[in-house]
């Protein structure tokens, strides 16, 4: 692998992670399509690299959320049963799914993300704005009225783990409805807790990918480094750029990548 290509991988990861991070999204959703479309990297190797960078971003940013007491670690570990089970299912399915189906699935996820960006995310109704220990205690003892929503939350989390494993992304697309809609957590808590869980979810599939040989150091190394640097820049970008502008850029890029992925899925491009 020549050095020019490694620098290109690094630059792509920096950009993806910076723009994604500024909007509270992981960069994986950009990394995999860009590597496959413009870098002609095999989609399975791109997914392997993206899984590693998702772990780096999750672990790297977890400290700030933990110190801000935003992460609900008890809830996270309970939901991680569902996400890792989803990831393991993805590992089982992964080898059997043809690359073209992966492209199609990716296009769907890109379109859903664009749609979520259009509809601004508000605080879910009926949520306690301050940390309500009693409420969470109830939730984790899994009794009273909460018991009906936790299975729904767990089911959505299973789906999130599965998609994460198949496509190498953090799959906030499914976690956000699970956290906001089903479990009704305040936005900051749900973002911090979801970010915390990504590392563990991706570790289950990344360790399988590592053993299968789809985590190629020459690709995954520069991508992981770029993601860490990009995440640091993203926090600054958040301060400089207006949220509206970023949102428009984000949606346009998501739609353009989705179109390309559809072309691959249909065999128009290869």
């Amino acid at each position, binding site marked *: 692998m020549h050095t020019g290509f*490694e620098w290109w991988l690094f630059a792509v990861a920096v950009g993806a992670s910076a723009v994604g991070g500024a909007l509270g999204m992981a960069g994986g959703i950009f990394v995999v399509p860009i590597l496959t479309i413009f870098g002609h990297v095999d989609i399975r190797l791109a997914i392997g690299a993206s899984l*590693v960078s998702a*772990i*780096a971003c*999750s*672990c*790297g940013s*977890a*400290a700030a959320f*933990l*110190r801000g*007491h935003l*992460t609900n*670690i*008890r809830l996270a*570990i*309970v939901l*991680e*049963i569902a996400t*890792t*089970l989803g*990831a*393991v299912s993805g*590992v*089982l399915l992964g*080898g059997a799914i043809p690359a073209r189906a992966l492209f199609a699935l990716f296009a769907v996820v890109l379109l859903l993300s664009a749609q979520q960006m259009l509809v601004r995310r508000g605080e879910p109704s009926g949520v306690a704005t301050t940390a309500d*220990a009693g409420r*969470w*205690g109830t939730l*984790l003892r899994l009794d009273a009225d909460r018991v009906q929503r936790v299975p729904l939350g767990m089911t959505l989390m299973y789906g999130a783990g599965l998609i994460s494993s198949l496509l190498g992304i953090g799959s906030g697309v499914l976690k956000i409805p699970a956290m906001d809609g089903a479990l009704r957590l305040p936005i900051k808590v749900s973002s911090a807790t979801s970010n915390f869980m990504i*590392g*563990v979810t*991706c*570790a*289950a*599939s*990344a*360790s*399988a*990918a*590592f*053993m*299968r040989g789809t*985590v190629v*150091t*020459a690709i*995954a*190394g*520069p991508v*992981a*480094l770029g993601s*860490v640097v990009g995440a640091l820049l993203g926090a600054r970008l958040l301060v400089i750029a207006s949220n509206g502008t970023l949102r428009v850029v984000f949606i346009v890029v998501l739609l353009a990548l989705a179109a390309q992925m559809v072309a691959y899925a249909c065999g128009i491009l290869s």
Partner: protein
Amino acid sequence: MRHPQLERVLAAVLQYGTWLATVVIAAGLAMTRTRIATAGIALLILLPVLRVALMLIVFVRQRDYRLGAVAALVLLLIGLGFTLGVVA
């Protein structure tokens, strides 16, 4: 129920662990020593596993066996993913 002390430990482990792995990967790539960079990647993948293991230990020590069992199950599932990577 919150775990301020555990949260502090996890924050430190994840933060310094990420930095260590990043430095190892960067050094490996800069020196074109693929094996070193690969070790850095392996370290990165192990970080969340270490995080769950730490949570397991703390929950069991606090006699919070329900959450301890949950953490053990998550560890088992990650192990299953790893095993599937080797055999399937």
